[in-house]
């Protein structure tokens, strides 16, 4: 039986890495006595696949994993048993059964919605954001193992809006390419914007929260849970 599971990663666990999160979920599977299938071979691993790792330091209410079980288990009961076995901060929100032949989530997801809260934001942030987005190209420098690279991130910013401000915080909603073909880390985007608005030395403190990840659908986008057999 194959399921797509949506889960959240809260404040208390925002600093655990992707690998650590996987291990945590694998151990919770054993604590919850879930009949997860294992890979064959020399070092058998639970058959789980995680879509688009969340960078360390961010929170999310829209994480997804694929899981294959050896026997049938009602998705609601699965979530309930897992939630009893998970540490504070990681919570399964919903699971749906999907067809065994469905391509991997990783290959389906192509964008993600983020909520970014900027503390002590630049003045006139909405005007500056508009100007930032109206540039012909937005080039950032990326340091990779092969050296420095320059990337135009503009086509990967699918949407960016100011939602509003409260005291010293301003909230933004952005939609960025997030998939196996194109991927923009929201931290790079917000840093590029703040550097554009206030110069390279501007020290900002911000929180990034992933709201959801989306799959291209017939008319626009769909949520991964809509892949479910029943839905």
């Amino acid at each position: 039986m194959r399921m797509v599971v949506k889960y959240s990663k809260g404040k208390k666990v925002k600093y655990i890495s992707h690998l650590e999160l996987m291990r945590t979920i694998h151990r919770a599977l054993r604590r919850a006595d879930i009949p997860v299938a294992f890979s064959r071979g020399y070092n058998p691993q639970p058959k789980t696949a995680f879509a688009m790792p969340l960078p360390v330091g961010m929170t999310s209410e829209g994480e997804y994993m694929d899981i294959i079980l050896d026997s049938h288990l009602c998705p609601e009961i699965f979530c309930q048993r897992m939630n009893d076995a998970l540490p504070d901060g990681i919570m399964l929100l919903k699971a749906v059964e999907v067809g065994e032949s469905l391509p991997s989530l990783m290959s389906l997801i192509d964008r993600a919605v983020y909520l970014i809260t900027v503390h002590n934001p630049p003045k006139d942030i909405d005007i500056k954001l508009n100007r930032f987005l109206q540039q012909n190209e937005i080039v950032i420098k990326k340091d990779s193992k092969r050296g420095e690279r320059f990337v135009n991130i503009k086509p990967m910013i699918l949407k960016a809006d100011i939602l509003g401000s409260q005291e010293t915080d301003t909230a933004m909603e952005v939609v960025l390419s997030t998939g196996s073909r194109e991927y923009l880390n929201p931290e790079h985007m917000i840093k590029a914007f703040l550097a554009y608005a206030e110069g390279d030395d501007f020290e900002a403190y911000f929180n990034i929260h992933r709201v959801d990840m989306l799959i291209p659908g017939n008319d626009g986008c769909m949520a991964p849970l809509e892949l479910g057999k029943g839905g």
Partner: protein
Amino acid sequence: MDKAKIDRILGQVGKPVRYMGNEYNMVVKDPSEVLINFAFAFPDVYEVGMSHLGMKILYHLINEREDTYCQRVFAPWVDMEQKMRENRIPLFALETGEPVAGFDFIGFTLQYEMSYTNVINMLDLAGIPLMRRERGKGHPFVIAGGPCAYNAEPLADFLDLVVMGEGEEVINQLLDEYAEWKKQGADRQDFLARAAGIKGVYIPGFYDVDYNHDGTICSVKPNRPGVPSVVQKRIVRDLEKAYYPEAMIVPYMNIVHDRITLEVFRGCTRGCRFCQAGMIYRPVRERSASRLMDLARELVKNTGYEEISLSSLSTSDYSQLEELVKQFMDEFQSRRVSFALPSLRIDSFTREFIEEMKKVRKAGLTFAPEAGTQRLRDVINKGVTEEDLINSVTQAFELGWDTVKLYFMIGLPTETEQDLEGIGDLAAKVRECYMNLNRGRKSRRLKITVSTSSFVPKPFTPFQWVAQDSVELLAQKQEFLREKLRIKGVTYDWHDPELSFLEAVFARGDRRLGKVLLEAWKRGCKFDGWAECFNYSAWLEAFRASGIEPEFYANRPRDKEEVLPWAHIDMGVTTAFLRREYEKALRGELTPDCRGVCHGCGINRLEGGLCP
């Protein structure tokens, strides 16, 4: 505590998960609702401290008490310390983020001499006065335990209390006494006086040390009435009934020993003469296979760990080992829980065993002949032969292993060039053994790592009187081995002799070294066991500034009559036994495993005799 402030700096340091807490099975209580807040402090980073079994036991044991909340604190790594100091964030406990300065106790476990500067640094980061004399009303009591606590004299100026021996029982007695004292609101000295009445509790401030003109110790005497002149260590009588946690914290990060640890027994009957653990953890007490299986079941259920390891000083000596391994495999293999067996003796290495191990994982194997010749192995009472080693590696190679590690010590008492040559010869023989088996075919895959540590004479061992080789001599010996081990397929690893030298200084140090620790800490020394932090020249400056010669402690043979800095501690095994063993060592005489015959080490005097 301003958790937001901590959260903010966590975004700026490496491995923030070290400081985060909130792991599965972490104990949650309200610190303001308990009478006693206890900070269990490990003077090294999280992934090292969390691997330590004693901490797991005591953390959960203390938290069984309704009146006490035990929280954890580790040494922040250098980057975190800097951020904490910049942002004026004092040392805080992982569970709640509360500053430990407001706790009733901060309890350090002393596993390693070179963590002493971290103890001082952690006190400083906490904002607790470093010296016990400077602490007063409202300050926590600084307490220590663990193997190095048997000679904690170099830390005597910093510690209010020291616990000798196994902590499971004495910690509860101490907390009971504290609870009484706290309710009465008496003064600090009064609590220490009460604590001194508990067996196994040592109050460094209640003893005075006098010195002779030559710098040796004249006497160590209590300076007030009602204090025992000799402090005797604590032993848990019945390990079968002793507390063992059935749920352990499951860290997020990959810690050093990231698995369920099952302690199969305490103590060791082999009597290797260099080994402090083999002396101080006596007598041998086992847990039954059925108790261990019950614990394993509970721990797998409560932690979800994928691996269990059996732990003890010499697991192959466990009397029910075969039975236990079989039960493990039967019950857990299908659930994909594997098991690991560390520290096997090479004379016990049966084919069945290796095959069982192979089912699970095919990592490298480590063998510890400890010395290069039979003569020297007899001196240290290791009791294994070259034949044992060759048999074991042959079996391993036959079963498909290509990677073996050979572990030796250099600088052992009576060592000669022949003994060093013996190390090279053994490595060559192991290689030959592989080549013969594989007729040279797969020779490229063979990897033999020869690793040498430098012998550090430890208190409470038969070698507590001997001089350590000088740094120069150890370096020469390593150079000799580097040449000798230029063999295809063999790599040579060695320990920094300067670090071994300082270990030797502090292992057998006395109270005068407190000054050196403080001076070294002022010069930035911390995490001395970490190569990237170890600053030998700063240490040498610290010795100079304190007017203390480190060679006096490391490189000087002690006279039989000399009063050693730990003369007022009774760790069970008698000095007379240690001396007999030392003399036998010099004659190259073996002392067989004491499970067969008692050699009168003295441990059976304690608790009315607990030897099996």
